[in-house]
């Protein structure tokens, strides 16, 4: 603890300096004021009348659905878009930000949603990219660079060696390296666009500490996130955009989730998870896996995993980052080829040997991959091209030509059914917002008519509305008899959506939880976490309950219950900074969960462990 504080103290040098700079004389107005900002892209009005005010030392949450204009507004602030209308004032002085460099000169730092790291360079080289320390001889002072990089990384709770190439770091680690890069700058205003989308709970907590340090030094923070529970914890005020327009601004203390959601989507959202209605009826076993083992290239090993998925059942896979959850899906889908996967798999009663994605698709599987841009979409091509890509054979005529009329009809049906917001089927997918891109990925999978759907982080980085739609879709598919095996880093989502949740730890199964509304959400939450971090007593087989006994006093992660956004007074929020008992616990937990970082999220709707 002491060591970390010391490191923090040194690493904040930049922040301290800006702290002094934030009070330039008598001006007491906001650090940043953007007013009546309007910006159009060809064919789209991205922003009109948007505004944003940030005071020194304040964390302003910028909230809105995907496509609401948050990123555009921030790009204007960062000097990426220069042809905007409206005024921007820094310390009350009107400024024009005509280039990213100008934004940097004003002390505006940006952490983009998309990572901007050079994969081949090391963590330290990325952090110091463009401002490498020099030795007297003029060469790069690697020793100083690595030392300072290590300090910054430690401050963020990362145990990545500074000399590790970024391409060998996990996504969560890369995201934190991106944060370290911004911290290394002399910023007065830090914009964080979805900084936690790949982070696990403990890492989020560490990041929040860093944010609090920064604001204590007078840095203003604009925080963009879709995770409302995070905003409740970190933000002082919240500005909501909808369809490019300013909708409202609230002090975080005076508002609640249901109001925010209402502001964002223009209607109240009664339920985040569609578990209403009767229990889904479960059919025959779709997938039976026993002793699945795998040695993937550059992934986590799997050691003998047993699981089964029935028709009409949604089975969740929980675990920390690096526990091997994605690898289970990829191995089953044949992405690693036949040679690297061991164990026996039965699919719809037939023995199945993972061979290739092509084979898996033919056998009725479909995979929603973890990273839609890198793994699922051909970004430079159209909605139609992408949607039909996995099922082209169905529209095949003689000579392997594609029946384009039937293809278009089928694609249009899926795209309409999922309410993808796209100007046309011939629009390139890279022009769509994240939520709509994800829907295209889903449309592609659904068009392949899978009987077993593998979903890896199906709602990562998309807005509340699209998320709810995808949850509804999962429920509907399950009711139609599809078996779903879903990985998610958001525990509330898993517990809210799944009939059973399996917990993985270091490539082994360490727990299994059935949905059963007998006990409180908190108990299940804790049990899941414990199982996810069970390093020693690894339990295989079905009786995972034992290993997952809730440990007393470990309720470190339990932000409010997202199944009930209308309840602002949710008592289950031990991350509340005013709770002195929980904080040291949180950090301790992190320290024991090794470098891979943790990968679970907080919150616990009803249900419990067995």
């Amino acid at each position: 603890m002491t060591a970390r504080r010391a490191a923090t103290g040194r690493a904040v040098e930049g922040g301290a300096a800006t702290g002094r700079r934030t009070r330039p004389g008598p001006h007491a107005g906001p650090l940043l004021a953007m007013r009546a900002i309007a910006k159009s892209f060809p064919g789209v009005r991205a922003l009109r009348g948007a505004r944003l005010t940030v005071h020194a030392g304040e964390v302003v949450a910028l909230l809105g659905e995907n496509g609401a204009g948050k990123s555009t507004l921030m790009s204007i602030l960062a000097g990426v878009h220069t042809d905007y209308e409206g005024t921007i004032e820094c310390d009350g002085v009107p400024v024009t930000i005509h280039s990213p460099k100008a934004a940097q000169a004003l002390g505006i730092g940006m952490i983009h949603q998309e990572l901007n790291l050079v994969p081949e360079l090391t963590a330290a080289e990325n952090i110091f990219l463009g401002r490498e320390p020099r030795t007297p001889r003029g060469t790069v002072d690697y020793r100083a660079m690595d030392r300072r990089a290590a300090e910054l990384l430690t401050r963020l709770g990362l145990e990545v060696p500074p000399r590790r190439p970024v391409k060998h770091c996990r996504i969560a680690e890369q995201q934190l390296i991106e944060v370290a890069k911004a911290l290394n700058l002399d910023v007065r205003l830090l914009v964080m666009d979805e900084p936690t989308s790949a982070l696990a709970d403990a890492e989020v907590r560490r990041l929040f500490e860093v944010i609090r340090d920064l604001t204590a030094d007078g840095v203003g923070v604009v925080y963009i996130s879709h995770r409302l529970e995070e905003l409740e914890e970190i933000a002082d005020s919240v500005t909501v955009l909808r369809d490019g327009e300013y909708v409202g601004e609230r002090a975080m203390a005076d508002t609640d989730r249901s109001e925010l959601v209402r502001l964002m989507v223009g209607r109240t959202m009664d339920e985040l998870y569609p578990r209403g209605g009767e229990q889904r009826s479960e059919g025959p076993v779709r997938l039976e896996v026993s002793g699945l083992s795998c040695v993937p290239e550059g992934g986590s090993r799997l050691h003998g995993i047993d699981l089964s998925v029935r028709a009409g059942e949604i089975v969740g896979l929980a675990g920390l980052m690096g526990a091997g959850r994605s690898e289970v899906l990829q191995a089953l889908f044949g992405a690693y080829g036949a040679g690297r996967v061991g164990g026996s798999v039965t699919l719809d009663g037939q023995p199945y040997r993972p061979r290739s994605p092509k084979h898996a698709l033919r056998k009725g599987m479909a995979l929603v991959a973890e990273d839609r841009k890198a793994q699922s979409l051909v970004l430079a091509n159209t909605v139609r091209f992408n949607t039909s890509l996995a099922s082209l054979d169905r529209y095949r005529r003689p000579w392997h030509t594609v029946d384009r009329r039937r293809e278009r009809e089928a694609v249009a049906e899926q795209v309409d059914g999922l309410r993808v917001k796209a100007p046309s089927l011939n629009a390139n997918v890279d022009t769509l917002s994240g939520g709509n891109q994800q829907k295209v990925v889903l449309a592609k999978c659904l068009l392949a008519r899978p009987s077993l759907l593998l979903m890896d982080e199906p709602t990562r980085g998309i807005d509340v509305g699209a998320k709810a739609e995808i949850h509804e879709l999962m429920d509907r598919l399950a009711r139609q008899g599809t078996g779903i095996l879903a990985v998610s880093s958001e525990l509330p989502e898993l517990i809210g959506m799944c009939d059973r949740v399996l917990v993985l730890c270091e490539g082994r199964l360490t727990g299994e939880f059935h949905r059963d509304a007998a006990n409180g959400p908190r108990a299940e939450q804790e049990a899941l976490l414990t199982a996810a971090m069970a390093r020693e007593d690894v339990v295989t087989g079905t009786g995972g309950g034992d290993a997952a006994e809730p440990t007393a006093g470990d309720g470190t992660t339990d932000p409010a219950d997202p199944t009930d956004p209308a309840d602002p007074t949710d008592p289950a929020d031990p991350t509340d900074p005013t709770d002195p008992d929980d904080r040291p616990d949180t950090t301790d937990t992190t320290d024991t969960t090794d470098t891979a970082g943790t990968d679970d999220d907080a919150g616990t709707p009803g249900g419990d462990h067995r």
Partner: protein
Amino acid sequence: MTGTLTDAPDKEQARTPLARVARLLPVLGSLQGYIGLVLVLLIGIVTQGDVFLSETNLTNAVGAFSSRGILAVGVTLVILTAGIDLSVGSLMGFCSMAAALLLVNEQMPVWQIMPLCMLAGAALGLVNGIGTSVLRIQSFVMTLAMLSIARGLDREMSDNVSVGTQVAGPDGTLTPEAEAFQQLGTPGHNVLEGVWLPFVGKEGVYFPVLAFVVVCVAFHLLLSRTTFGRHVYAVGGNPTAARLSGINVTFVTIAVFTLSGMLAGIAGPIDAAYSAAADPLAGTSYELDAIAAAVIGGASLRGGKGTIVGTFIGALILTLLDNVLGLNAVSDNWQLVIKGSIVVLAVVLQRPDLFRRKEKA
């Protein structure tokens, strides 16, 4: 979400004339190759008028470029998968030499020479494909190696001497095989005489022109209409997504290199017939013209973007440019300079975003 996402209908169905025009606009923007083509034509007409427009001149121009145009189609295919094929010039040289030797030494008829050459080209292309996909050698390196290998084989095969294809029989006239071989591209010889064809009527058609057009049409259909074409674009656009969508990336990669090699096998005999000889150095630096044609036509070396129509236009621009500059007695050296500049210009024009600030939301 209901309220905000409902405006998602497929506007394709809006088939009003206005909507059609609106849909065409971006297409026009991306095909400024047409504009280049028209410009070159205009320059040709203004400066050389009748000479330029004469049938002989245009036929010669296209005939001279035909083999490179065919290579460009294969290169486009490879470029679409985010690869590059530097070996096409050498492969063509190899195949032209093979064709000449088969004609001279074996007295083989044309209809046997052509398939054999295609087979030989395809085999060498297959090696490129296997090296790239199975051995995971970068295509630049693999095909650079093949450029050297094929050229070496070509020169060894010919003992470094040019092999003429105008083979005379004992009576001093051309042998029947050599006579037939001339049909492949010797200026003044047409094929399909007496068969009615669009545009040219019954006078027959100059084979290099015919071959280039047929290859373009066939590969355009392959790319735009077939599942294989979709797979090519997917592999170039995002190989991971392609693989996870059930596409056999290895097969597609091997296939495009093999097809590229096969097209070099078509271009080889044509070039031999056009030049009336197979030179051991034939096809040197043709790969650069082929790549230039693809790039002028809008193909992106990052893969996933480009069309055969574009390449066809790109090849025509280079053809007519060569011709116009030649007619105006511009020296070869300056022709090279101008060609290079045009490649740069074409690429810049295809990137209107270069003139705007970066718009990455």
